[in-house]
């Protein structure tokens, strides 16, 4: 991944993280909340692989922990794992048309479960019924609705202005 590409992806994650903590977190519809940051991270990880997913997830999680004065490292750990898993999925089997939807669906559910477990372990327990039954279904629906448009947007951001050089020669490998 070239430097400008990484810069664009990092910039997009930074802007999304700021918008998530200051704007999107106050939007609640039917008890659910769209997690634009998680969906953006998933889209970028699918497009740019597991290393970018893990590193981007770590730093954006750290940013969220800092901005919200939450326990440092909690969101960093969750986003690292989410980014890495999605990146690996994109590098292996997740290349079809439905990959963004599938990745967003699976990661949203696993992220909620992992967040519940981690928060329980550090003594900030939440009601599992509320997390898994009341809030997860609408949040999952919102994230799935966001998956395709955000995936297209991320791909556009990463590819806009990039010059594609014509192939001059082809070397056959022996």
């Amino acid at each position, binding site marked *: 991944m070239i430097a400008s590409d990484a810069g664009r992806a990092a910039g997009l994650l930074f802007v999304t993280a*700021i*918008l*998530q*903590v*200051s*704007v999107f*977190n*106050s*939007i*609640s519809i039917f*008890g*659910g*909340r769209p*997690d634009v940051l998680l969906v953006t991270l998933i889209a970028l990880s699918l497009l740019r692989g*597991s*290393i970018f997913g*893990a*590193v981007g997830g*770590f730093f954006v*999680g*750290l*940013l*969220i*922990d*800092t*901005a*919200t*004065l*939450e*326990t*440092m*490292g*909690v*969101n*960093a*750990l969750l986003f*690292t*794992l989410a980014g*890495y898993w999605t990146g690996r999925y994109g590098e292996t089997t997740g290349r079809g048309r439905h990959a963004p939807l599938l990745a967003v669906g699976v990661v949203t559910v696993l992220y909620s479960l992992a*967040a519940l477990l981690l*928060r329980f372990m*550090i003594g*900030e327990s*939440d*009601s599992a*019924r*509320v*997390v898994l039954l*009341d*809030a997860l279904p609408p*949040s999952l629906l919102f994230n799935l609705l966001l998956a395709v448009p955000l995936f297209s947007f991320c791909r556009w951001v990463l590819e806009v202005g990039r010059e594609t050089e014509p192939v001059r020669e082809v070397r056959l490998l022996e």
Partner: protein
Amino acid sequence: MLGVLVVFSLLLITVYFRESDGGALHDVQGAGATVLRPFEVAATRVAAPFQDLYDYVSGLVGAKSDRDRLRAENQRLRQQVIELQSADQLNKSLQAALNYVTGRRFPQDYKPVTAAIVSKPPSQFEQQVVIAAGRADGIRDDDPVVTAAGLVGKVTKVVGHEAQVTLLTDEDSAVSAIDLHTRAEGIVKHGHGPGQTLFLDQVPKSEHVAQGDRIVTSGWHSGSLSSIYPFGIAIGRVTSVSFQSTELYASVQIEPYVDFSSLDSVIVLVAKPSAEKTKR
């Protein structure tokens, strides 16, 4: 790479968890939050027109019924103001005659520090917001936080120029409260569910709490101990009371006066130093 990041995250959690509020990692977090604040403020300002539009449209749904309810309430409150003004005069003269000693009084014994909310909770299960005022503004841990409508919560973490406020809707929040009509005391908590509904817990079934009663902070004192909330901060209105034969206490549901979903700014009540104990 993954292993390094995971280990580093776990290390951060461990160190952060074990160190005190004045620890190095907390200081770094405070400095980082200060650096991020202009970006958050800018994002909030850019999104404000859209958020206003969303609030306007969602407000239209119940606007007509709200108007009728508020008209009726306004009429009732006007009558109450007249009654309360005469009761206040009588109260003052009686307290003066008895040399009555009170604790901190709300709002006169507190300095209000108004602060904008710069970041909302990262997930709906964390009911904490970050405000743009901190230790430098005199804010301390456990300071009560209100709006013009009523009680919002309390300060749970303070750094240089920012503070974290845990809302009343957090599962760990609990406030001693009293029914103004019946004087029934209980503890206001958030129920195990989404939304803003609160419950007045520990109210014996013998107390006749009724729908429409107003609940305020009780501001108790016991020896040298006292509630962090002064008496009289409005919390909410009783919306339903039910009794179950298997339960010791009544189930009292409260609708808070504060709309926690659209908080933009709050007022932190910083106790005036001279108001530790006031004699009237």
